[in-house]
């Protein structure tokens, strides 16, 4: 090797290292240097339930100084990456915040979360306080690994009552009625649906509901089971076709695929009278209360279940969404951390104040026996609607991107995005997704 090539190789190598290191980023460091490292740590999410988690732990630490908990908060997308890396490296928090589904299963398979069956058997009160169908979400292969920690978040159809009055329409009960509303709103210069297409996951709510209404929950179950060509099910193809029909009819607000959900630009369209309807999760009501209190107080926000599809096999009472978020306990925790954490799960979680604070925020906790509190709530209409929806639902399907393995979930969101912007056909979608089955 001549001198020149060696120098240029070294300078090339240093140039690329420099370029790559510029893109490398990360954050670390202890959040509270004074905190006791022996006490259990808890990582939770910022956003709708943040205040409730925070005040619950503050109250707990005051009353139980021996079992005090270190709490940290993270933004949703960043958290999902961080916690997985931390858990994989054996540095995970004692309390792992999760959604159940595919991610929880991967933790269980790798032995990173503790089984809670013995704890539930010793403390039947804990088990009895939950709505069984929601608790079921933390069960993997017949064993419980996670306990719900917040509210039921079914996806519902929000609408702006004033805009419906303006054109003299009623919220849709069937897909046909929904499609008939589209030209009516467009003629009045109002966007029929707000959608944060750039965030990709809001698109998924449309697909999950339509597939459920057309083919029933069995269609997604066979996808989940990895059956061959499961994505080619006629119900999936029909649902995707219906979505493209709705897009072609200008059903979604102009430029919807430039709108991001994290800034709340989609809900803003609803409360600034620019869009008439929005399909979104139950947490949006809590956000609306914060972002547009006058919109909620003036009773302008309406909510109905997702419409039925004529001739569809699915029960129109089925819901999709997030049954609830969950706490799992890390197997990397010490015995002291674990005991303190179990004490919190027993006495701190869903204490009276906890449940009441959650209801006051406009959310429905995933627990039994709260009918009276819900009836007394200032958001009575919404919380009773959600409670009824979840209680009566024959099937409460977890969001597909959480239920599937991360590899499939990622591919599904990208392909669905292409369906919404008309880049691929339903058949191509099915073909692309069939290739990911079993990953």
């Amino acid at each position: 090797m001549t001198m020149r090539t060696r120098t240029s190789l070294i300078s090339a190598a240093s140039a690329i290292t420099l370029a790559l290191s510029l893109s490398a980023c990360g954050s670390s460091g202890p959040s509270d240097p004074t905190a006791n490292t022996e006490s259990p740590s808890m990582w939770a999410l910022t956003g709708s339930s943040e205040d409730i988690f925070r005040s619950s732990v503050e109250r707990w630490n005051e009353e139980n100084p021996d079992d005090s908990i270190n709490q940290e908060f993270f933004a949703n997308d960043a958290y999902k990456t961080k916690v997985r890396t931390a858990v994989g490296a054996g540095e995970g928090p004692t309390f792992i915040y999760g959604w159940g589904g595919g991610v929880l299963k991967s933790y269980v398979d790798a032995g990173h979360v503790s089984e809670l069956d013995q704890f539930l058997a010793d403390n039947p009160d804990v088990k009895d306080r939950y709505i069984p169908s929601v608790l079921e979400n933390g069960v993997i292969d017949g064993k419980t690994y996670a306990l719900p920690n917040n509210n039921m978040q079914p996806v519902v159809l929000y609408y702006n009552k004033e805009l419906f009055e303006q054109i003299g329409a009623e919220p849709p009960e069937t897909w046909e009625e929904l499609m008939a509303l589209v030209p009516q709103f467009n003629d009045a210069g109002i966007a029929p649906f707000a959608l944060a297409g750039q965030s990709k996951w809001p698109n998924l709510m449309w697909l999950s509901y339509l597939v459920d209404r057309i083919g029933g929950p069995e269609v997604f179950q066979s996808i989940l089971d990895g059956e061959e060509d499961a994505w080619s099910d006629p119900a999936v193809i029909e649902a995707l076709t219906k979505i493209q029909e709705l897009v072609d009819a200008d059903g979604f607000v102009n430029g919807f695929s430039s709108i991001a959900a994290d800034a709340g630009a989609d809900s803003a369209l609803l409360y600034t009278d620019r869009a008439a309807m929005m399909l979104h999760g139950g947490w949006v009501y809590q956000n609306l209360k914060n972002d547009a209190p006058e919109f909620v107080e003036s009773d302008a926000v309406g909510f109905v279940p997702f419409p039925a599809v004529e001739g569809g096999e699915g029960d129109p009472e089925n819901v999709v969404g997030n049954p609830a978020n969950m706490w799992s306990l890390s197997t990397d925790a010490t015995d002291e951390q674990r005991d303190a954490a179990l004490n919190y799960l027993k006495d701190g979680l869903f204490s009276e104040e906890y449940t009441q604070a959650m209801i006051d925020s406009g959310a429905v906790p995933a627990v039994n026996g709260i009918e009276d509190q819900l009836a007394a709530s200032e958001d009575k209409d919404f919380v009773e609607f959600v409670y009824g929806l979840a209680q009566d639902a024959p099937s409460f399907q977890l969001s597909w991107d959480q239920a599937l393995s991360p590899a499939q979930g990622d591919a599904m969101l990208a392909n669905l995005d292409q369906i919404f912007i008309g880049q691929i056909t339903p058949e191509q979608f099915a073909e692309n997704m069939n290739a990911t089955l079993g990953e």
Partner: protein
Amino acid sequence: MSTVLKPKPMMKARGARTEGPSAWMVVPALVFFVTFAVVPLLGVVFLSFTNWNGLGAITWAGLESWQTALTDSVTMNALVVTLKIMVFSLLVQVPISLLLGVFTAGGQRYRAVLAVLYFVPLLLSSAAVAIAFKALLDPNFGMGPGLGIPALAQNWLGNPDLVLFVVIFVIAWQFVPFHTLIYQGGVRQIPASFYEAAQIDGAGRMQQFFHITLPQLKYTIITSSTLMVLGSLAYFDLIFILTAGGPGYATRLLPLHMYLTGFRANDMGAASALGVILVVIGLGLALILQRLGGRNRSASQLEGA
């Protein structure tokens, strides 16, 4: 490099020592380079032959990840997107920053003021730039409706035909000031006597630009282009926040594809294979650009000045 160095007799007596500062001075840099670049790189090469979801056991997979990474249509698309961003960035940024660099190198006071204002984007982090542009480009609450100009209320980030150019524009907005600074320095180093001589010979402004400024900036252009080309292989933060690779796969370039494969889809094996591809492409391009500098790199450009 062309002259052979004659070793001093004292050195010769001690053995095979060479002229110049002790080779030990390279040790601190070497330690850092090996610890933080070479070792992780070897780790990535190893991981690319395994199956790992980031949680469980690492299992040997042979060439499976490579096969997935190389035959996947998304990877091919990511390569094309990366190439497009690289080429368009060069085409857009080189002329603009070259001209601005020449302009701001002038001694006039108003040019200095303009230059200072113009370098402001350099002070902003990529994340801040991306978040600001995302808000500005929102079709309903962004600058179009805000300024009352409907032409600006396009589906900027949602139209797959448009979004790549929006990304290239934002990248240019962020990085042109940096390259302008490099060119400004380059232009200021050209001896004034060159221009004086040219003027005496009757050369016009255009002739001076093409026959003096441009040739004298040869190495500045190579430096700046190397940074641009390698930079576009590393663009991540800006695009991740601005579009997250969407819509569909329209702006999913190689580094982003690597990240999403590794940390969203949790396929560390395939992500490592992509990382190795990225390093190989980067090294290759850096070598080619260094070569473009010509054989006689050490020769002075200022001979006769």
